[in-house]
């Protein structure tokens, strides 16, 4: 019994430790002089680790603008796709600018600002493969990054008999297709564009568009003050054209004006 009690109190301590740095305001961040921003570890062109080992990309540019308006230093850490929300929850990151699409499930855990970036999700396959609709995926192996909206979309729409192979992120999912370990993949258009940059002679092409996804900055659920401030910054960046500039630099097109606001 003694051992059980010891174990229980140790567990409580762990849980308590993870909740300590939770409530957070703009003032807190200014006082600390630094904002810890979590980005996605493998989501070109939104965040990529460059040849000198630093992260760069759309999300990093947005993060730097935010830190600039806050008057603090930005500290970027790259997290794997499935580790982004846990990093925020556990207090390792203050905000996540990491290609997170606001979904009702996620919004039960974290809070989202209005979207700051967008892309389309597509079924991609080699030019020789005839795929025009979901039905054509029957009997094929389709690779996808686990824990992403494209995975949810694929699971919901794929006909029975589709073999879904889940990988850690989009770049491995598309690599699996290029290696012939999958017949098709579901990835954002930007991933295919980046892939084509590094392998210009690939025959992979967009087959059909599933959805346009918008992605938001995430804060912890209790950080209303911070979220409101971030919303103001995103709105300001949209109106002043700052966001268009970043968008054109990394994706080739401006940020759409009919993007949702919330």
């Amino acid at each position, binding site marked *: 019994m003694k051992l059980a009690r010891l174990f229980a109190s140790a567990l409580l301590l762990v849980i308590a430790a993870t909740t300590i740095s939770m409530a957070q305001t703009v003032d807190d961040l200014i006082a600390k002089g630094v904002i810890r921003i979590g980005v996605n570890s493998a989501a070109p062109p939104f965040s990529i680790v460059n040849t000198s080992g630093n992260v760069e990309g759309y999300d990093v540019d947005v993060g730097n603008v935010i830190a600039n308006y806050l008057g603090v230093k930005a500290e970027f850490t790259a997290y794997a796709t499935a580790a982004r929300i846990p990093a925020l929850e556990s207090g390792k990151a203050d905000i996540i600018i990491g290609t997170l699409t606001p979904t009702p499930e996620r919004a039960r855990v974290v809070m989202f600002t209005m979207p700051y970036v967008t892309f389309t999700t597509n079924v991609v396959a080699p030019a020789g493969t005839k795929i025009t609709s979901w039905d054509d995926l029957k009997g094929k192996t389709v690779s996808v990054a*686990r824990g992403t909206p494209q995975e949810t979309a694929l699971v919901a729409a794929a006909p029975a008999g589709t073999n879904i192979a*889940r990988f850690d992120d989009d770049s491995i999912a598309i690599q699996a297709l290029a290696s*012939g370990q999958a017949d098709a993949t579901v990835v954002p258009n930007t991933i295919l564009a980046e892939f084509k940059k590094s392998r210009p002679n690939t025959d992979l092409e967009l087959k059909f568009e599933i959805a346009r996804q918008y992605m938001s900055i995430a804060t912890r659920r209790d950080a209303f003050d911070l979220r409101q401030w971030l919303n103001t910054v995103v709105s300001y960046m949209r109106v002043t054209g700052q966001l268009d500039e970043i968008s054109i630099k990394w994706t080739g097109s401006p940020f759409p004006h009919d993007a949702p606001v919330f």
Partner: protein
Amino acid sequence: MDFLGLHFRPLIGYAPVLLRGLGLTSLLAVTGVLLGGGLGLSFAIWRFMAPKRYPWLTWPVTVYVEAIRNTPLLVQLYIIFLGLPSVGIRLSPLLASVIGMTINLGAYSTEIFRAGFESIKKQQIEAGLSLGLTRLQVMRHIVLVPAVAKVWPSLMGQFILMMLGTSICSFISLEEISGTAYNIQSETFLNFEVYLLIGVLYLLITMIMKTSLSALGNSMFSRLLPARAVKAAARAGTGVIE
């Protein structure tokens, strides 16, 4: 089911996929131990038996051992699963995982067996040969069995490390315990709960492996264990020469 603010109830619905993952991890553990251990033993024997006059005979083994022991398992799996198709060898996630774990464990266990073989004194072998045992008999009774008995605990440790390492196979889309956990976690956001649960599952496999491997060791090497040897000798009414 709710304990200290953790919610395990929603995980009940995932029991079938978790069991499937448990089955895959166990399958990888068993095939890994059998194939990887066998590979390691064969290479170690090869290295031990190869005539010293032709050192190049053992070079391939050395290259294999060093290449595998000095590169990450993840890199090896990616090369097997994503790299080999470029030379026309396409393996399913399960087959790629089995091969990856076998090759990885094979390299580590080669070295462990080697340590066992090197612990056998030259004089013992000479004594065996002078008593009229054939080369094969010497290899079996004087070298192999005592050497393996000596390194059995380290081997068990390596086998368990290999089993725990199978969690990396989720990176090549194999849905063993960890891959299943990543999927459940991304659907439910019950991170702590899922990882606590699979921690228990891994512990379960480790316990089973430990128990059965030490039972196997006891039965294989019972003659060589000092305490048993004393008892057996007492029963037979002979003295123990040590």
